[in-house]
């Protein structure tokens, strides 16, 4: 599904990757581990074309990510990170602005669907009327997860999405993504709920090898 092929990348003269090879198969659940600054988030940026490698290629669903194909990749992959920047207005307005993108015209942003997912993720309905800036980190992360689920993305790039959740919710969210056979998931997380899952494969970013 996602393949990194001999990626070299450096920022301001600092080498992040020198010839990284990594392949994530369709339906696989991968936990990326390693100290901070090792390039876990850069990996997601590469897939979405926010970062362009100095050399090497990223393939998404068999297609090389470039200036043309990247716009399609962004319609298939969902990216949620630890402090999602979901705009300035009310949460409900943000949902409707996302549903207003032409590429999302088929997505089901009905109240019923939103309320159902909010309920599953333990969010209260009245949150929709609140300003995004008033939400807690955990509420924003779950709102972002709701959007990605409504958009029916099949590939998920999750960066510390459970860090602000309580224990029960961590389990619930991890199960939602790791127990759905249809989804391909790559995640960075210090929460053991992800790595403890029997479905998880572990990739060590420091040794650049599979641990499991």
């Amino acid at each position, binding site marked *: 599904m996602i393949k990194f092929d001999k990626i070299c990348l450096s920022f301001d003269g600092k080498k992040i990757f020198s010839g990284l090879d990594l392949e994530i198969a369709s339906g696989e659940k991968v936990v990326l581990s390693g100290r901070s600054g090792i390039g876990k988030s850069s990996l997601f940026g590469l897939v*979405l*074309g*926010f970062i*362009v490698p100095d050399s090497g290629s990223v393939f998404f669903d068999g297609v090389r990510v*470039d*200036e*043309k194909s*990247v*716009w399609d990749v*962004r*319609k298939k*992959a*969902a*990216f949620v990170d630890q*402090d*999602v*920047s*979901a*705009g300035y207005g009310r949460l409900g307005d943000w949902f409707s602005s*996302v549903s*207003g*993108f*032409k*590429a*999302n015209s088929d997505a089901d942003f009905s109240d019923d669907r939103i309320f159902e997912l909010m309920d599953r993720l333990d969010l209260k309905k009245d949150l929709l009327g609140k300003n995004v800036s008033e939400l807690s980190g955990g509420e924003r992360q779950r709102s972002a997860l709701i*959007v990605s689920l409504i*958009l029916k993305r099949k590939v998920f790039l999750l960066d510390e999405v459970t860090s602000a959740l309580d224990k029960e919710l961590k389990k619930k969210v991890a199960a939602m993504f790791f127990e759905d056979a249809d989804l391909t998931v790559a995640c960075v997380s210090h929460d053991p709920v992800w790595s403890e899952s029997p479905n998880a494969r572990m990739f060590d970013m420091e040794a650049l090898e599979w641990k499991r």
Partner: protein
Amino acid sequence: METVDISIFSLGLVFLLLAVPVGMSVYYRLNMTGAMLFSVLRMSLQLFLIGIFLKYLFLWNNPFINAAWLIVMILVAVFSAIKGSSMKAKKVLVPIFISFSAATFLILLYINVFVIRLDMVFDARYLIVLGGMLLGNSLRGNIVGIDSFYRSIRKDSKRYLYSLSLGASHHEAYLPYLKESVQLALKPTVASMATMGIVALPGMMTGAILGGASPDVAIKYQIMIMIAILVSTILSVLLTIVLTLKVCFTGYGTLREDIFEK
């Protein structure tokens, strides 16, 4: 009715008024005497020279010279717009020049041909004077517009990239920033129109009345120039942003870092 001329001696009496700010600056240690006198000197010299220059411009009244001078004015406006923004001149010079020229020429032609109905469209008195007013007034809006557009996308890059990751097209992703910047750029023009005539008598009207025009002619010109300024500002701000998009973004829809002055 002729304007009363000011003799050189009388003009000297105006400079005597400068004793007031200089005295205050010294007494309150405002540390402004040097800068103030330098600016006064520069202004006087520049206006003195432009006075001689305009005299000949009006005398010759050659359409080609007039148009050439307007282009020089546009170039100066373009450079000050870029200098006032945080963008690199090399990257944005051509698109900004094109949008300033298009906006200024289009509006001037419309006014000179259809509104004032001049026999000679490139008449110096109308082309240069009105062109100068349009440029001078849309300049500030342009600086605010282009600067806030690119700077807010850079500052807000997480939110911007996040909307790209949610399937937004490039156009959909930058639209909120475009909206904000154009609103910001037009705000002062719109606000000053609403209080015009009550709070302040606009410069053009004052000039026309002192020049012997009757107030009802003066207000017609003032209404015309205010609408022209509004239209040329929005036109040049939007054109500037649209024409710089190609230079300032990558094919991936991300902002180029090398467009900003360090």
